[in-house]
């Protein structure tokens, strides 16, 4: 029972990290109709900037907050310098241009920080375990990711559902040309939304950094999963992204934690242990295919 709870928590933690990344992606794709492959690069830049600023300020919290501000500025700068020119182009051009950005950022990081990965230490106050139930320890840092992820998810839900900016975002997601016609400053809105997406990506990157390693291309692998999540959730829907991220997180954990044991009941032990990771790897894609057959616009997609 404790084991099950811990594995569910692992899934929630993974899902929340994925949600932060997917939220920004679904906003840009839904509102700006922009395929942004470079979203993973912002995830990476968030982590690298945090590494530098934590070193400079000698404080995890301060360094992290400054890094978030810096990632926002970086996002806005990228939007003004490159992304803005892509809105009127077709998706293929956007894919090519943002893929170019991936290469650019990877090489930029190599030039600035070198090819070897960087390591962010877990801050002292989180470098221990907490008892989530009496006698059931869980790493404090991973627990903190869950808390921060949940708080940000609630804030984002509030922002989208209750504020003027959120209203414009929702309006943009359902009919972009109409809000332009109503006199909303689309340029400013797009810059803000892109910067906001960058902050979420950066936050996910720097929170993952102490568990993982800050390294070149760290965002490229995870971007695919984020794309799967927004397709399942429905492009442009924050709620959809959240639910899909949670489901994908749980599927990933179930695939790793329980699938080998299930397979062992009817396969040889060694066949089961090598088949399980392969199967769990395709499970999320199977889910995506199933959702697309059932609902071609995703679980909460608005566009047809």
């Amino acid at each position, binding site marked *: 029972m404790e084991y099950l709870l811990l594995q569910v928590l692992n899934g929630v933690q993974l899902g929340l990290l994925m949600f932060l990344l997917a939220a920004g992606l679904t906003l840009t794709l839904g509102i700006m109709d922009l395929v942004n492959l470079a979203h993973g690069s912002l995830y990476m830049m968030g982590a690298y900037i945090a590494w530098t600023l934590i070193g400079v300020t000698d404080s995890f919290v301060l360094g992290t907050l400054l890094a978030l501000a810096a990632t926002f500025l970086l996002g806005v700068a990228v939007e003004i310098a490159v992304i803005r020119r892509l809105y009127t182009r077709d998706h293929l051009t956007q894919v090519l241009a943002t893929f170019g950005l991936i290469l650019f950022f990877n090489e930029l990081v190599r030039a600035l920080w070198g090819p*070897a*990965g960087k390591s962010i230490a877990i801050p002292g106050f989180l470098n*221990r375990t907490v008892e989530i139930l009496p006698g059931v320890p869980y790493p404090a840092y991973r627990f903190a990711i869950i808390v921060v992820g949940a708080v940000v998810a609630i804030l984002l839900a509030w922002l989208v559902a209750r504020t003027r900016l959120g209203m414009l975002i929702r309006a943009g997601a359902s009919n972009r040309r109409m809000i332009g016609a109503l006199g909303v400053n689309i340029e400013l809105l797009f810059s803000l939304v892109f910067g906001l997406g960058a902050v979420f990506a950066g936050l996910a990157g720097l929170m993952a950094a102490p568990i*993982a*390693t800050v390294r070149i291309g*760290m965002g490229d692998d995870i971007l695919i999963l984020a794309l799967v999540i927004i397709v399942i959730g429905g492009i442009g829907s924050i709620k959809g992204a959240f639910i899909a991220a949670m489901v994908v997180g749980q599927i990933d954990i179930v695939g790793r934690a329980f699938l080998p044991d299930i397979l062992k009941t009817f396969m040889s032990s060694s066949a089961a242990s*090598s088949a399980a990771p392969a199967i769990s790897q395709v499970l999320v894609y199977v889910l995506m295919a199933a959702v697309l057959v059932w609902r071609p616009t995703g679980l909460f997609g608005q566009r047809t």
Partner: protein
Amino acid sequence: MKNKLFGSATIAAAMAFGLPAMAQSPVKIGFVSTFSGPQAAIGEDMRRSVELAKEHLGGKMGGKPFEIIYEDDQFKPDVGKARSEKLVQQDKVNFIGGYIWSNVLLASYKTVVDEGDTILVSANAGPSQIAGELCNKNFFSTSWQNDQTPMAMGEYLNTKGVKSLYLVGPNYAAGKDMLAGVKRTYKGKIVSEDFTKWPDQLDFSAEMTKIAAAKPDGIFIFYPGAHGVQFVKQWAQSGLNKTVPLYQVFSIDAITLPQQGDLALGTLGAQEWVNDLPNEANKKYVEDFKKKHGVYPSYYGAQSYDAIMLMASAAEALKGDLSNKDKVRAEMKKANFKSVRGDFKFGNNNFPIENFYIQETVKDPQGMMTVKTIATAVKDAVDPFAAKCPMK
């Protein structure tokens, strides 16, 4: 007039530069490794060691200058194969060295060894297939067969009395060889054997929770490079470092220690080469490497250094004439050079017959993280696939 002048100048230039170069065509060596992406640090360590070997040789092999063409496999089997093809067919190299990854080597293997003119020296990867039925006279290894290092670890765990072991490794060629290797020798109970997605899985929370629930006497892992960093960090963060000791192969080394830091202190691993092995060649290699780069070399580097030295030994014996491939192979088979691991012999499948040591992670007197030898696990080990190789 002008044309005439230009013509004679060209001839003069050709005589000055072109002709002597033709008479002394350099030895060409291709080197395939990972120079970009998350595992680039390993490739960089190898490149530094190859350059150091070149420096120690004075830039010459058997009296001829030699050039090294580095190719980046990008950590992908298909790219590695394409790069190897280019080295063999376009650059027409005499030797190809390198190869960190078993899946990259397996993909590139046929293209190189079937060509007949190029000799491949693996400086790391040692998949079981190549040691066994796919063995080839054009292939040599200056590392090991994948199963051997974990087999040495298994032997040591037996003598240490570790009663049960939880095995975790990545789901690809080398991961399977490594876990199979430890099972060959370890006599205690195998609690579970988990494979994780490779190379994209870097989060091991589910595995840590499983290990905590299974309560084994020890964890055995194989996670090279960046993945080793993640696993060790997450093992420590989960609190398992206080209850379940970690035994590893290729997961804690000079590449990963700067990022693992104190978390790795006291962990034990097996290896055929350690930076403190007491022989002259090794002292020179390690000292010069440290002087130049300020860090310890890893076994990846040591094996690459040896790969160049092995090629040089054949060129030396043949006075730089590498035209007769049978002679080159015969000279290489002698392993007549000062290896940084100490002297070794080649077995029938051209894999080394060598010692394996147990190393402990410590801090050196300057406070730098490193590993030191604490025991010899096995002596003159022959890999378990040698008998399947038809070569004599």
